[in-house]
C-alpha cells in the first residue's frame, strides 16, 4: 500500500504542493496528510517550482552495485519559501547557485532539473 502523500496538483504542467502553517506562515514539504491530526493547523500551498541550489553532493555507490554516481541536493524555492531535497538532473556537475526546476518523476516523486542559463 502506497501511503506517500500526493504533492502534485492536477494543473498542466503540475505544480508542487506544500502546506502553510496558519499562524506562523511557515511552509513545509511534503504537505500535511489529509488524515493527519495536524491538518487543521495548515492550508494547502501551491509552490513555485523554480529554485536555486543551496547545497548538494554526488553519491558514489559501491562499484559492486553497478549504479552510476548520482547527484542529490537541497533546492531553495524562494517564492513560497521552502527548501526541498531531491535528485538533481543536469549535464556536468552541479554548483551552488545554479537554477533548477522541480518536476514530477515516476520513480522518485520529484526531481530537480537544471535550467540552462
Amino acid at each position, binding site marked *: 500500500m502506497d501511503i506517500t502523500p500526493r504533492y502534485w496538483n492536477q494543473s498542466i504542467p503540475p505544480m508542487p504542493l506544500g502546506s502553510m502553517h496558519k499562524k506562523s506562515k511557515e511552509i513545509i514539504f511534503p504537505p500535511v496528510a489529509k488524515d493527519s491530526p495536524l491538518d487543521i493547523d495548515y492550508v494547502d500551498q501551491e509552490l513555485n517550482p523554480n529554485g536555486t541550489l543551496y547545497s548538494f553532493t554526488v*553519491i558514489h555507490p559501491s562499484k559492486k552495485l553497478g549504479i552510476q554516481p548520482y547527484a542529490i541536493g537541497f533546492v*531553495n524555492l524562494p517564492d513560497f519559501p521552502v527548501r526541498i531535497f531531491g535528485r538533481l538532473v543536469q549535464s556536468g556537475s552541479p554548483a551552488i547557485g545554479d537554477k533548477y526546476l522541480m518536476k514530477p518523476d515516476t520513480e*522518485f516523486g520529484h526531481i530537480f532539473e537544471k535550467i540552462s542559463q
Partner: protein
Amino acid sequence: MNKNMIYIEGVAMTRFDKQPNTLAPELAQSAILNAVKDANLTLNDIEAIYCANVFGGMILGQLIVRDLQLQGIPIYNIENACASGATAVHLAKHALLAEQYKTILVVGIEQLTQLGGGTIPLQLNDHKTRIYANSGLVLPSIYAMRATRYLYERDEDPSLLAQVAVKNRFNGSLNPYAQQRTPTTIEEVLSSRMIAEPLTLMQCCPSQVDGAAALILSTEHNNGRKPVKLLASIVQSGMQEKYSDDILDAEITARAARLAYEQAGIGPNDIDVIELHDAFTIAELIYYEALGIAKPGEGPELLRSGKTGLSGKIPVNPSGGLLAKGHPLGATGVAQMVELTWQLEGRAMERQVNKPKIALAQCTGGGIAGVDHAASSVHILGI
C-alpha cells in the same frame, strides 16, 4: 557529600572492532564487570541499570543482566539514535538527583556488524523521511551537503576536512580501544574511495563496528581516587527546520552546549578537553563553532593552529573520536565519558592530555528528515 553532586565512580569499555562472533550480552557484560571493578564496588551495590542501544531489539538490557545474579533491580532501555548513551546518563542523573537511587550503572552497547553493512537505516515511519530516502537521503549525504556548503562559504579546500581525519587517526593510533589504529596522511585520506562528495571513505566513521561502554554514577564517592563529578547534563531535541536555516549552524548542538555551560556555571574557555561527535570530518569543524571553542568562521584556523591536537590548548577527540574508534551507536555517548574520565584522572596512557580539569562530551542523534538532528546531548565533567 553534597547530595546534589553526582560522581562517576567507575568506567570501562571494550575495544571497538568487528566482533561478529561475540553476542551483545557478552560485550556488555565485559564492560559492566570492569566498570563495577573500577568503582571498587560489587554488582549488588547497583540499584538500577540504564541500557542504551539502538538496533539490538527489545529488552536488551534485561537480556544482558539476566545471568548476572542481580535481584530484579529496575532496568531501563533507552534509545535516542546516536545520542542514546548520553541520554541514558542524563536520565540516570535525574533519578539520582531525585534520590530514587544512590548508585546506577549505565551501559551502552551496539553491534553494527549484525546489520550486514551499508549506511545506518533512517526512521521511515514518516512521509518526509520516506520521500527523501527514496531520492537518496542517507546519513553520509546529509553531512556531505554540509561539507559542500562549508567549503563554498568559507572558500576552503577539501584538504581541510582531511586534516580532521589525520588528527583523529593519529590519536586513535595511541588508543588500544580504537578500531582504526594506524595514522594516516592527507593524501591517503583524500585518495580513499569517494562516498559522497567531498567526503571520502576515511572521512566517515567506520560503520562495521561493535562495542560496549559502561560507567557507574553515584551520589557517594568511595573509589579511592580524586572524585570526577558530573557538572552538567543536557539533552535537547531537533526543531522543525525552516527555509531560512543555515545548515552550518549546528543549531541543536549550539543550544545544548549553551544550556550545559549555564548549568555548570562555566564557559567554553574553561573546557580543557573535548570528545565530540565526529561521525564525519565536517562534523568536527562545525562543532568547534557550535560549542563556542572557535568564533563563527574561525573553525579552520583553530584546526590548523594545532590547538585541538593532543598537545594543544584544547585537545578534541584524544580517543581518536568516532573516525578512529568507530561508532557503535548505543555505546558512543558512554564511551566518550569513559575516555574523558580517564583523561581527567590521568589514566589515558599514551594519549593523555596535559592535566585537564574540565571536560566536555557532545553527541548528536540523527535519522529523520526535517531537523538539524533529532537529538543532541552535552555533558560536562570536572575533577
